């Protein structure tokens, strides 16, 4: 039994190691200064970089987090602290359904409700689509983390003369903070690599832009376009972009680990 479990875990780890090794082998050589600072050059030409996609990823994901984190955390707090009634049940059910909705469906909805009425693709529509993906995820993690806070702490605060909402915010949410932060980082990592909803919303853009009302490039869109394109130069850049995106996600995962360790450190 132990052997079987060991083999299975080894397989899981092996996948990650193989992907990383392949990415490094094929992408690392293209990571130079101009990759990070230059914009794409004309199709077929050599050189250029993905500065527009890196900045675009930052803007779109940042904006999505700005929308998604407060809503998601607020919903999670509500579910954990007050969500025992019928409304709580409905919210929880909707969040679970939304959590299981394929991201491409979210993209189509964002296109119908934002891109079409606005008349053009935009980074903002992409952020809203990503936020919609993120909210149920954050809400459910926050709920779990808040539920882990011992009931005795709540009672201690209430018995000291804390109003219930204040207990939720000052004691419960703060105690669960490390867990909530972890959930948020994992959520951000998850949407940072999303491509499908962005195809219908942010579209992609070979030029550098910081205007959220315009189409905007992200690393995931760049990888999608370059990897499916005909040029070797594009493939090279796609590998490098994939390595950067993977590194970003790993960084967020390490950050999440670190946040968890902080919590356990504080609890001892």
């Amino acid at each position: 039994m132990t052997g079987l479990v060991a083999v299975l875990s080894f397989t899981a780890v092996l996948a990650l190691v193989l992907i990383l090794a392949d990415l490094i082998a094929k992408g690392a050589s293209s990571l130079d200064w101009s990759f990070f600072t230059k914009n794409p050059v004309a199709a077929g030409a050599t050189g250029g970089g993905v500065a527009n996609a890196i900045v675009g990823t930052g803007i779109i994901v940042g904006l999505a987090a700005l929308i998604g984190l407060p809503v998601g955390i607020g919903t999670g707090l509500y579910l954990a602290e007050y969500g025992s009634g019928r409304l709580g049940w409905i919210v929880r059910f909707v969040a679970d359904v939304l959590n299981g909705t394929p991201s491409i469906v979210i993209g189509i909805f964002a296109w119908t409700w934002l891109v079409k009425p606005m008349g053009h693709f935009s980074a903002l529509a992409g952020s809203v689509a990503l936020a919609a993906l993120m909210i149920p995820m954050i809400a459910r993690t926050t709920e779990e983390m808040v539920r882990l806070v011992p009931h005795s702490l709540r009672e201690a605060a209430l018995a000291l003369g804390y109003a219930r909402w204040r207990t939720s915010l000052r004691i419960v949410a703060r105690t669960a903070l490390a867990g909530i932060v972890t959930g948020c980082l994992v959520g951000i990592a998850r949407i940072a690599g999303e491509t499908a909803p962005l195809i219908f919303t942010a579209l992609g853009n070979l030029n550098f832009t910081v205007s959220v009302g315009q189409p905007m490039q992200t690393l995931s869109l760049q990888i999608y376009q370059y990897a499916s394109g005909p040029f070797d130069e594009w493939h090279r850049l796609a590998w490098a972009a994939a390595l950067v995106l993977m590194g970003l996600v790993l960084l967020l995962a390490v950050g999440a680990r670190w946040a968890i360790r902080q919590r356990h450190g504080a609890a001892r």
Partner: protein
Amino acid sequence: MTAMAIPRPAPSGLKPETRPGVLEPSPTHILDVRDYNFWYGARQALFDLRFTIPRRAVTALIGPSGCGKSTFLRSINRLNELIPHTRHAGDILLEGVSVFSRETDPVELRRRVGMVFQQPNPFPKTIFDNVAYGPRINAICREREMPERVERALRQAALWDEVKDRLQAIGTSFSGGQQQRLCIARALANEPELLLMDEPCSALDPAATQRIEELMVELKQTYSIVIVTHNMQQASRVSDFTGFFYLGRLIEFGDTKQIFSRPSDERTEAYITGRFG
């Protein structure tokens, strides 16, 4: 009744004599329980409790587990009402004012009635912040007066000498006995009129228990204390009055010496002598 002391003036702002149905605070007792009943859903947990809790004394509530002692304690500061599907009948009067009346704000009530729980439950924050939490939230004193207030509360809880150099250490990093005294200091920093202790020593070793017991004897000079305990020796050592709960009813209430030497009810005698419970 022996341990009576000087009556306190009525808390400002309450003006009991001007309100209908509100009594003058009694000089002898702080709490007046009147035909109090309590239900968890369909199950009745407390039946027709009728007694008074004396001022500036330690009152012990004893009885087998599940007999409603903690339920009663948590009725006084209305913590029970946070549990869904509970209800009560009858009344509990703190200083002559019903804790359930419309004018009584549960948040203000809980400032006036401090509580120490069975398991030490300090916040995962510094010693200082733990103690300062109540006064801060209730705006009892200015922030610059806070160090003085924290020190006073820690001294009252006999913890000051052990933590005075470590006020910025995290409260949860101390021993169980120290944590419990920290929780007592936290409750005292609010300057409550009544202190409820729900088996405060059950998670502690004998040495820590002794410290808390000595503390209670000191604290009753200033505070009125109600303690729930399973420990007969503890009840007889620290309390001035004792109430025996059995199956949700108060079987007997009186002077601790009398209850332990000449109980008038045979069930009390059976419990005290260890024949059941």
